[in-house]
């Protein structure tokens, strides 16, 4: 063994003690090195929210439930039995989490408050909204009566002759039942032969158009049109049709929620905005499938307003389609609600989009723990919850609910996720380091 203090000679009995102590020192050092590696490769991830400074940039725990946005809760005042909900988006699989609440001096005791943690996609945690109906522009026939979905409403053609005279092909109408029609509000009947209803689709030359407010909006490409409709849904017209309706300056794009690829980037397209997906890890974590990418060109992408990078900390944007295999039901994300598709006929019109797989039942499965007062701290309460049961659950979002029976005055909420030591996480850590090396040294990664 390397002796750094050769000049200091020890008596034989001391030399033995020194050797033992030295072995102990090296063993302790080895343990510290292993602990340091554990911290680097399997890090614990901490999230915090300070009620005393709700706009702090350090707040990476998201206060998410609607009631939490009320003024009282924003100040940390939890009303008795009012649920307070946080969202955290850690990356990895975790063995456990520690939830910690710090109260103000004048707060009620929150010991034994139950904490529930659930895992899914943040958007899939949205409250369930009203069932969604057919898309605007869809042509439907039920019991021999013809309809078009226009401005969200179901408008009936007053007679069959009108359908033919307006140029619609009867074959292009989707056969549905009366039951399928109840998910769109009823609108006015169509009687006017001189005017087409809003959202009617036309094909003029090689371009598809949709009528909106007496203007013809061109689809940016046939691909964009086919992401929502079939070719037979459009009425074929000639160029002189522009004398009846003026051409709009803006173009229509792809179905909301479409995944578009323009090498080397991938975007989510939604409501006129394009969200560049930050990296492959985010793409996979958000449940997307590489096979669902639509190749677009710069013109097609150019009609969208580019947004900041989309990371797995953000919820899926409007238009994203989820599918629950267990109950065989689709859900569409719209305005912070998930709208179920109750009818098979409606679902069929969304079948051009590939859904993100999720599970409503797993959404409700949670792990619980009860807050206990921490030692040597009068105002801090914490509890530990095992998270192993979530390993195979889809989603990146952990939602933490707390319901304070007698109310509370919270000053701080913290949650720490502890990473499991397993091969998957080890590979993920190495992959992350490799990615950082490639980014740092500007090396192009091979797909």
């Amino acid at each position, binding site marked *: 063994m390397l002796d750094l203090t050769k000049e200091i000679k020890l008596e034989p009995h001391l030399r033995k003690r020194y050797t033992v102590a030295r072995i102990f020192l090296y063993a302790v*050092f080895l343990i510290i090195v292993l602990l340091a590696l554990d911290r680097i490769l399997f890090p614990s991830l901490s999230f915090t929210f300070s009620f005393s400074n709700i706009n702090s940039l350090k707040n990476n725990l998201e206060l998410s439930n609607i009631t939490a946005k009320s003024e009282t809760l924003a100040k940390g005042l939890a009303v008795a039995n009012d649920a307070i909900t946080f969202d955290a988006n850690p990356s990895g699989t975790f063995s456990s989490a520690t939830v910690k609440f710090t109260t103000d001096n004048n707060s009620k005791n929150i010991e034994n408050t139950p904490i529930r943690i659930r895992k899914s996609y943040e958007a899939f945690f949205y409250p369930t909204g009203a069932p969604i109906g057919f898309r605007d522009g869809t042509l439907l026939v039920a019991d021999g009566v013809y309809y078009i979905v226009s401005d969200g409403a179901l408008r009936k053609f007053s007679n069959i002759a009108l359908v033919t005279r307006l140029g619609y092909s009867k074959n292009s109408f989707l056969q549905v039942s009366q039951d399928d029609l109840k998910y769109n509000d009823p609108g006015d009947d169509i009687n006017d032969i001189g005017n087409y209803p809003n959202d009617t689709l036309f094909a003029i030359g090689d371009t598809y158009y949709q009528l909106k407010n007496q203007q013809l909006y061109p689809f940016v490409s046939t691909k964009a049109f086919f992401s929502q409709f079939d070719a037979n849904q459009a009425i074929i017209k000639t160029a002189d049709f522009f004398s009846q309706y003026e051409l709009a300056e803006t173009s229509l794009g792809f179905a909301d929620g479409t995944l578009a690829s323009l090498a080397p980037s991938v975007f989510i397209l939604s409501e006129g905005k394009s969200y560049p997906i930050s990296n492959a890890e985010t793409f996979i974590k958000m449940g997307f499938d590489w096979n669902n990418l639509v190749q677009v060109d710069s013109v097609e992408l150019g009609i969208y307003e580019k947004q900041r990078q989309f990371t797995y900390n953000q919820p899926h944007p409007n238009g994203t389609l989820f599918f629950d295999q267990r109950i065989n039901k689709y859900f569409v994300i719209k305005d912070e609600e998930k709208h179920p598709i109750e009818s098979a006929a409606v679902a069929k019109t969304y079948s051009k989009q590939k859904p993100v797989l999720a599970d409503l039942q797993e959404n409700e499965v949670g792990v619980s723990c009860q807050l206990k007062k921490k030692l040597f701290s009068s105002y801090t309460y914490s509890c530990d919850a095992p998270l192993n049961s979530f390993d195979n659950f889809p989603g990146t979002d952990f939602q933490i609910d707390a319901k304070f029976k007698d109310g509370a005055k919270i000053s701080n909420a913290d949650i720490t996720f502890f990473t499991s030591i397993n091969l998957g996480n080890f590979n993920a850590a190495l992959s992350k380091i490799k990615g950082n090396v490639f980014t740092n040294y500007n090396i192009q990664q091979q797909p």
Partner: protein
Amino acid sequence: MRILKLPPFNKDALLIIYKLLYDALFLLLISFIAMLIAEGALPGIVSSHISLTRVVIVILLVLLSIIWIGKKFQLTYAAPVIKKNKPLPVLILLAFLLMGNSLLKFALWENMIITLTTLFLFFLFYQIIFDPKN
């Protein structure tokens, strides 16, 4: 180095601790160098999980302990004679690589000029500080 006068209390234990502190210092310095190299190659890989300041504080505490016990034993050392030895070229190469790595955003020729100039300045400082005439 010679032992002039031993303190009256538990000198055996202190002697062992003194030798162990040297071992600890050696391990800490090796770890610290490894951390600096890793940090230089990939900024944040260590410092985002382990506080380098704390490591430096621990190294300083070990050094102070060595000095304190050394004084107890009244250990004296001859001034170090730094001369060219085998590890020197390796250390210079390592310094060159770390400096070059930290200047990756510069063009290659700028990087080379700055790194070589810095090393040359260090060499001059070394000459001035360790000049036997001083």
